């Protein structure tokens, strides 16, 4: 009886293999890949950093160039602090993404991919929550600077800064959640 079961099981597995052979044969007869698909594929740029990383670095560089040009009326310590802060942010973003090397990520084994995603998530989490109090302090300082160095009513300036800060936080939060959710989805799929 046990022998019969083993034979049946073996047959079942052989059926699976023969079905797989059928699939392979069928696919070999298909063209599947055309010139257009190949051209479109090879058009995609190879980057060590993903789009969000480049956005963060772009914003930081923009701020570094923009601050001295348009906010020269603000105090020198504030401008220097802002530039240093943005520079550190750009470098940190670059490091966080580069160390994970997203270009090579998909060529790793599945467990390594999950581990690297965990590392990316952890680093991104740490850098975001370290920067948050600094950003809040910077916003307050910026508000004080604006109020003291412009003739406009302080309520208006404080309101404008607060509005900008809320929008900035919202965008940053969305970006943060997107990266974390992407990482979580991959980790969960592999470790399921």
């Amino acid at each position: 009886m046990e022998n019969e079961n083993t034979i049946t099981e073996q047959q079942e597995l052989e059926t699976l293999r023969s079905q797989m052979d059928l699939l392979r044969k069928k696919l070999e007869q298909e063209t599947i890949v055309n010139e257009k698909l190949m051209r479109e594929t090879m058009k995609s740029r190879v980057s060590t950093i993903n789009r969000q990383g480049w956005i963060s670095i772009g914003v930081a560089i923009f701020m570094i160039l923009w601050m001295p040009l348009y906010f020269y009326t603000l105090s020198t310590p504030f401008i220097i602090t802002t530039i240093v802060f943005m520079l550190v942010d750009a470098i940190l973003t670059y490091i966080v993404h580069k160390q994970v090397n997203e270009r090579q990520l998909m060529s790793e084994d599945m467990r390594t991919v999950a581990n690297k995603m965990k590392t990316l998530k952890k680093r991104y989490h740490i850098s975001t929550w370290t920067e948050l109090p600094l950003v809040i302090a910077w916003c307050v300082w910026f508000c004080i600077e604006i109020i003291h160095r412009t003739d406009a009513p302080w309520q208006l300036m404080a309101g404008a800064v607060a509005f900008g800060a809320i929008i900035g936080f919202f965008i940053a939060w969305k970006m943060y959640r997107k990266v974390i959710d992407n990482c979580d989805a991959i980790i969960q799929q592999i470790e399921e």
Partner: protein
Amino acid sequence: MKQTEQEFEQIVKRHKSTIYTVCYMFSKDEDEVNDLFQEVLINLWKGFGDFRGDSAINSWIWKVALNTCISFDRKKKRQGEKIPLEMAGNLFTDEDDDSQQIRMLYDRINQLNLVDRAIVLLWLENLSYDEIAAIVGISVKNVSVKLVRIKQQLIKMSHA
């Protein structure tokens, strides 16, 4: 066309069945297969420069295809132009005997979780336990334990 691009194109054409098989087994319809296939090609292209042939090209293709299919965000719309694949048949709808047999295989494999799906596909492709272990990133012993469980699951499905 540059030499690298020609090499890449040849590799893709040689391994099109492997790539398509993975995409098919991880998709719910033809449209998703198209999206996944394009995504796999992009990831292969991105990693092609770093691929030094340290591991067999076959293992590399399997790794990229499986990782892409497992991590692909199906809720997100694929970026870039959508190019249909050159397929005369449709494995999801064709009614000939072979297609029906293939769909029986698809229906069973599709019930497994994603990692088990990957392992059984590698086994069905006759890869050795060592190769499967290297692609999945687990020990050879773990592969054999998992395969026993997966095979039992597949057999149970056929009796259900």
